[in-house]
């Protein structure tokens, strides 16, 4: 009965997904509940910020620069048709600050730092380090998970800012230095088009939300991974896939609320 079998299989997968969502929500609540240690002993969070944030800097800087340079070329090509090359600065800045900075920085963060977090937590579980901590009367959520969570949440908006900054610089190099757009209009158009509240703050809110989503997914997948090589590798893959989809879905929802064309 292949039809019956596939219906049963679908049912199992649905129930399993709902269970996992419940576990993830409980895990997130526990992480927030036991976050005191992350702030009382802020050194623990700073240490994790080094691993998730500082070590992601290179990829963020390089990617931001290239994205900005591509925007410079493409933007100039399009704007030239309407004789508005001088608006290149505002096009580059708005694209980066509102969308590309938060989204691409979060996608890069998920694949660089998120996957590393999942693998690390998964291996700690497989080698009984989490159990050992629990039996030493040290809460692993407070000691291992919460500092990593806050490190991701704090790092993400900073990385997003750096991405946008480098992107603007890349756009400047291509637009002004290479193509020859007027430098004064490049910066003045950018200055008048970008609004702090509407553009920069909304971009920062987006990257904060992405930071929460990516770190919760990464940490939960690691904590929930079966303690085997296959289990950890599967969890790492799921982290990247789920984080990427979550970022794009959340971006749509946030954009719909923030930039409705009013």
């Amino acid at each position, binding site marked *: 009965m292949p039809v019956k079998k596939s219906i049963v299989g679908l049912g199992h997968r649905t129930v399993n997904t709902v269970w996992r969502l419940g576990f993830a929500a409980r895990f997130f609540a526990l992480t927030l509940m036991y976050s005191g240690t992350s702030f009382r002993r802020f050194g623990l969070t700073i240490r994790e910020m080094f691993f998730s944030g500082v070590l992601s800097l290179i990829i963020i800087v390089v990617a931001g620069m290239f994205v900005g340079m591509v925007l410079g070329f493409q933007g100039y090509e399009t704007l030239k048709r309407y004789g508005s090359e001088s608006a290149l600065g505002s096009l580059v800045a708005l694209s980066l600050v509102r969308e590309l900075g938060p989204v691409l920085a979060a996608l890069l963060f998920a694949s660089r730092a998120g996957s590393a977090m999942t693998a*690390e937590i998964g291996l*700690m579980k497989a*080698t*009984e*380090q989490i159990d*050992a901590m629990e*039996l*030493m*009367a040290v*809460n692993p959520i407070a000691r291992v998970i919460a500092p990593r969570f806050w490190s991701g949440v704090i790092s993400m908006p900073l990385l997003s800012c750096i991405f946008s900054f480098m992107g603007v610089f890349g756009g400047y190099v291509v637009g002004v230095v290479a193509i020859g757009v007027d430098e004064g209009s490049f910066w003045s158009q950018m200055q008048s088009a970008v609004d702090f509240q509407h553009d920069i703050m909304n971009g920062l809110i987006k990257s904060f939300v992405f930071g929460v989503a990516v770190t919760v997914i990464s940490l939960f997948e690691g904590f929930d991974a079966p303690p085997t090589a296959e289990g950890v590798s599967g969890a790492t893959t799921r982290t990247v896939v789920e984080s990427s989809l979550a970022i794009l879905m959340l971006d749509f929802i946030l954009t719909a609320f923030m930039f409705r064309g009013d």
Partner: protein
Amino acid sequence: MSSQTLVELRDVNFAYDSRPILKGINMDFPKGKLVAIMGLSGCGKTTILRHIGGVLKPTKGHVKVDGQIIHELDRQGLYDLRRKMGMLFQFGALFTDMSVYDNVAFQMREHTDLPEEVIRDMVMMKLRAVGLYGTQNLMPAELSGGMARRVALARTIALDPMLIMYDEPFAGLDPISLTVVGNLIRRLNDALGATSIIVTHDVQESLKIVDYVYFVSNGAIIAEGTADDIIASDEAFVRQFVHGQMDGPIPFHFAGGDYKQGLNLQAG
């Protein structure tokens, strides 16, 4: 529970889903003694240890440690009790992102307000006790299996626990490390005045050092006594286990059905 008993298990039953793992276990671990729980892999030995550590709850019966029923404690009560316990995991479970020094100092930093100079002296003393003074700056990846086990032992005794649990402490060790770890377990138990529980299937090494042995098979105790009682036991399973015989109550062949039929041969 007598005042001389630190850990008591009474009619402990446990099942994963509907699969029974422990069936009516009764055990006593007197203060200051070194007691072994022996049996085949998968017989429920580690599950017993996890009940004593409060990681698992019995489906029936209770585990009492230092007069307190473990599964009735709240999280804080359980953590307070665990501070008086130490557990050595099968492969050490050292924190791989920390040096040997930080591993041994971990509980001192987490549970005490001692100044770093005092912690430093205590770490050196613990490392010296396991014969590894001088390794404090190494990372766990730089240690051999035997050394890692001894560092883990130093971490286990960091706060001088009243109860030390060992989960397969002899697994995968060379003969010299085996003797070293065995002697350390006995010496530390006596020096700290602690009570120790060893879960193991290493008969030769553990019978040399333990005061009492429980034999577990299929989730139930099938024999118990001193090392001499166990060696002289007439129980078929104990004899097969202690002397490492290939066949006996535990058959060599897995119950895999008719072999000839599996090869598509005619019976007879």
